[in-house]
């Protein structure tokens, strides 16, 4: 595991959570991502369940963004 990359990602994730909260956006997906990253970093690897959770979150966010804009 590239700990430096994970730490950088967690740091940026915390930053984006803060901003999302400030502008009144749903920060839950980003919080889930950061939580999974921390859990994975502690374990040294990612479990199939964690990976599935990350994939589900990302899929939902991509679908949301790709929906035609009104």
């Amino acid at each position, binding site marked *: 595991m590239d700990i430096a990359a994970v730490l950088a990602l967690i740091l940026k994730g915390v930053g984006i959570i803060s901003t999302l909260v400030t502008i009144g*956006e749903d920060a839950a997906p980003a919080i889930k991502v950061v939580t999974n990253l921390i859990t994975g970093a502690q374990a040294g690897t990612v479990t199939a369940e964690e990976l599935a959770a990350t994939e589900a979150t990302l899929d939902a966010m991509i679908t949301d963004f790709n929906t035609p*804009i009104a």
Partner: protein
Amino acid sequence: MRKIILVLTLSLSLAGCATIKNIETAISLGTASVANPVTPTRLNQMESAFTLVFAGLNAWKKSCVQGLIPPACKTQINGVQVYTRQIPPYLAQLRTFVKTNDQVNATVVFNNLADLIGTVKSQAAAGGVNIGS
């Protein structure tokens, strides 16, 4: 081992929406190769990074829909969507290749996705959303 660090920084600098301009995320994906394979942990990191990028993109889109930023944002977002709509098929392929440990194809798709995000970065930058540093 040749390693190229791809740093993507998402920073929104949208006129008329001061609070949203501080969104920023950076991801280091590297370049996949035989010596630097796409493991499930690495896949998880990439997907986590993408999730943070899309959190920013969705905030941009929502601000646009709510009319908080200039209406030109709709055209800009449409332009970015041309590329973000290409991501799901690549992701599906990458997940399959990683789970079956097909590193040859996983490497190709991983690097294609990194390139695609680079294009998304360029398109978003044209709309005032800078992804990259």
